[in-house]
């Protein structure tokens, strides 16, 4: 096991958004330059728009979380792209600092 490795500073942008808007948001992220993303389906939530929770009948109350690691230089652009893709939809956007292995992924 090698323990020497380089670490790179990135921004992790997390977006909790209604499931029906996820493909719009993902497209926006890709267009804004994100090289990848992860998506957690089936989130429940509460917020200004009340309780949200998938019910199997229609996707109108389903939430998902999108996680996108990007270079710090791209962070603002990506957050703006997500915000615009959500528009009047339901969602929140936030960012934090992370350190990654293997720079080439991001």
């Amino acid at each position: 096991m090698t323990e020497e490795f380089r670490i790179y500073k990135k921004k992790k942008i997390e977006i909790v958004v209604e499931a029906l808007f996820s493909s719009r948001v993902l497209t926006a992220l890709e267009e804004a330059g994100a090289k990848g993303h992860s998506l957690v389906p089936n989130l429940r939530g509460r917020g200004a728009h009340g309780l949200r929770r998938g019910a199997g009948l229609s996707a109108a109350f389903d939430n998902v979380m999108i996680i996108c690691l990007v270079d710090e230089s791209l962070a603002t652009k990506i957050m703006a792209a997500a915000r615009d893709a959500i528009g009047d939809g339901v969602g929140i956007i936030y960012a934090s600092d992370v350190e990654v292995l293997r720079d080439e992924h991001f």
Partner: protein
Amino acid sequence: MVDQVLSSVLGNFLSPAILAFILGALAGFLKSDLEIPEAIAKGLSIYLMFAIGLKGGASLAASQVGIEVLPVFVAAFALSFFIPFVAFYLLKLTTRLSRENMGGVAAHYGSVSIVTYVTATEFLKTSGIGFEAYMVAVVALMETPAIISGLMLAQGKGAGNAASGKEGKSKINKDLMREILFNGSIVLLLGGFAIGWVTGPDGLDKVSGLFVDPFQGVLCLFLLDMGLVASHRIRASRALSLPVVVFGLYMPVIGAGLGMISGFIVGLSAGGIALLAILSASASYIAVPAAMRLALPKADPGLYIPLSLGITFPFNIVIGIPLYTGLVLALVG
């Protein structure tokens, strides 16, 4: 007559499926931790759509159908498209909802509820009343026109952009049309219908151990879930004012009336008229909410879902179905 309707209301009421809805609603209101896993609920709805399509297609294959369906299809399309205008007008008259919310609600009432439809067909079969084999195609036809008119109403005359965000109109509209036309429930219903039609009664026979025999039981479980979801959404709703709730009770009756008149004009059988009435009376809670979120995000799903699922749906399956059928029989049969 009143006696007959009352007794069929009671008979309808005492079916396992409707009692399962009530059980689910009760469990929800009593804050029971009972819940149907989301994947199971989706699985049940996939099953129902596909099975309904399949059986409709197979029964169409077994019957002779010609050009006489055209006026029925036109009438169905028109009902779906124009009922939202009536609904919108009534909402404007009686509520203080925003334009977006009125358009969103109106779209739901132009479109249809498939579970209401299938409950009605069971009711007709139990009562020995026949109906046209192609009615499933009518269901599929009535799903989407209301979405278009609802969006038009929500935007008003001056507005020209159904889309959210700042992106161009045409792009979103193309995506949106695809999303509306190829949404899962329509694909399953029409796909099942086509498969049933092509493979005919023999094909259905092969798969009847899944799509015919257990059908009533699956409907029962699905209604259990609908009762749970309806009560959860009503409890969570902050948008259901009294005039809106009342709208959810008289609007189906108006829709049923329009459906009956149209069904009579295009020459459907008594059973067919009753089904067109119930389809017009019913409000969507599967396909339309998804379309509305995408096309009209300012309209509140906490308004239209509990209204359609928690007020109009139970009204229709408990009272509406025997009522409209009784009326049709009294007038036509």
